[in-house]
């Protein structure tokens, strides 16, 4: 994979994180392809270290662009209390790797994430961490997220809710 492409894709993911952290959710929606598949399976503790420890039958997120749009629109109402007072949040994205996708103009992009959130005057911060597997696609010269699978590293999430997007 050439360095220029890696740089371009990394910048795209950093830009996405910026939009989320600055609560520009409508602009964030513009980064998603119309046929988006967005999901977050459940991490479990299994009895065999080689067995899969992800459950796909039940997930934390199972979203389409339409359902994510509903979630975003809700955050712009006056009474989405989870975001009112506004949460302070940071999405840290690292360990980005890029591989060719199954179609031309599509790339499989893996990244690690660390999400931190601070609420009101609470000195304890919430966090989530794990890995993401994206399919990024160039549509009319613009990068779009065609699919995203979020793999949390915790079986019991240490956040009050999944009011954020990852």
């Amino acid at each position, binding site marked *: 994979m050439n360095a220029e492409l890696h740089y371009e894709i990394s910048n795209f993911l950093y830009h996405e994180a910026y939009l989320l952290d600055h609560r520009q959710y409508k602009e964030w929606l513009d980064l998603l392809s119309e046929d988006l598949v967005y999901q*977050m399976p*459940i991490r*479990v*503790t*299994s*009895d*065999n270290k080689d*067995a899969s420890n992800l*459950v*796909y*039958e*039940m*997930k*934390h*997120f*199972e*979203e*389409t662009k*339409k*359902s994510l749009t*509903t*979630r975003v*629109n*809700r955050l712009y*109402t*006056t*009474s*989405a*209390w*989870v975001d009112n007072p506004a949460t302070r949040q940071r999405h840290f994205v690292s360990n980005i790797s890029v591989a060719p996708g199954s179609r031309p103009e599509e790339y499989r992009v893996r990244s690690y994430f660390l999400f931190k959130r601070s609420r009101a005057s609470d000195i304890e911060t919430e966090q989530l961490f794990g890995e993401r597997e994206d399919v990024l696609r160039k549509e009319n010269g613009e990068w779009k997220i065609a699919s995203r699978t979020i793999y949390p590293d915790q*079986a*019991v*999430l*240490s*956040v*009050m*809710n*999944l*009011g954020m997007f990852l």
Partner: protein
Amino acid sequence: MRNTLDKKTLSVLQQKISEGLMPQWVVTDPEIHQVEIEKIFGHTWQFLAHESELKEAGSYVTRWIVNDPVLLVRTNSGELKAFLNSCTHRGVHLCTADFGKKKTFTCPYHGWSFNLEGELIGIVAGDKVYGEEMDKSEWGLRPIPRLESYRGMIFANLDKNAMSLEDYLGDMKFYFDILLGRSDGGMEVRGVPQRWVANANWKALQENFSADPYHVQTNHRSTVEMGISPSDPLYASYGHQVILGHGHGINVITGANGRSKFPFQATPESMWPMFERNLSPEQYDLLSRTTVFVGGVFPNLSFVSPVHGTEGHLHNYLNFRVWRPLGPDKVEIWCWFMIDKAAPEDYKEAAYRGYIGSFGSSGTLEMDDTETWARIVQASKGIMSRDKELNYNNVSNYLMGFGRVEPDENFPGRGIAYPTTYLDAISRSLHEYWFELISKDLLDAGEEAK
């Protein structure tokens, strides 16, 4: 210095509860919390799993009754057994996986192994180190004293003298029959429970589901603003709030004219004859008229069976949850999605998506609830809200409908039914049972201590 739960404090508490009030310090008080764990969680029926989570011989799940790890297995004969999930050699947490399938459980410390019946079947170097006279049968896993189920819901009780599960559930069985028994084959759990942690006290969460449709219009107003929920501020109040004894309760939410806009909770019409076959005429009638069933089994099992959808279509599902106390201000939430086994597959899938969008770890309705739950504990720890001497009279209000709303004698279901759900009747009965349990033996003990 903390007060003890002496007789005076308890009698003031009892007095307040009888007046429809609840001292605010009770929410997060560490001593109360300890008493709750021993006197409530040590003696009441605790939900462990739904039988569809343990399909074959050797299937197991691991669960918690507050701080007691529980191993629930299906044995080779198909029976369910529950054990303290702790090795009988030195107490090591035996099986740390969430679920799986096994023939034996082997402890990582010294290698003792146990079969599905809980019997100790292998000791490393057994004869050499313990001698042949060591009786393995004395060192089997310790069974959880009581294990009983109703309509596929498996409950355990740490108290071997507890009343039977059926007696404990009492009139709740009538509603469990509707929720869990309306379809051929009953309900099934999809996948595994979602789990996460909230800064909250378990009592507030139990109240939120069992007893509080009043919060819907404000706490979930975002859905009204978006045109998903009706704008009538009373929309969640139509129907009945039903007291079921032992602190259990259910809200049967219908519609302004006593009928739901969505007959049979927007389930496919093809399923209705099946409902009729499986339910009594009263239960069938109630189901036909209801949009939402939301309630709880004391102390910490809640459920909601609503009508929701994220993609424009409306679907019904059944969501059970356990509030596992991790401390006075921390709760681990366990959230199960259940659906009629007999429902069409595409309906199940759409209902699942409706669930993900509304309740559970990422549910848009749920997340505004979590915000409130945290704010309750946040404001209940100070000197003024603790108010052990009760001088400030710092109490929470459970007076809605108190002495004003009379039971509806014509309600076809079981229990004491009041003709609105904007009511604190369930909360008050929950508090009364809560008090009965925590004060057991303490009223006398407090006297002796003086």
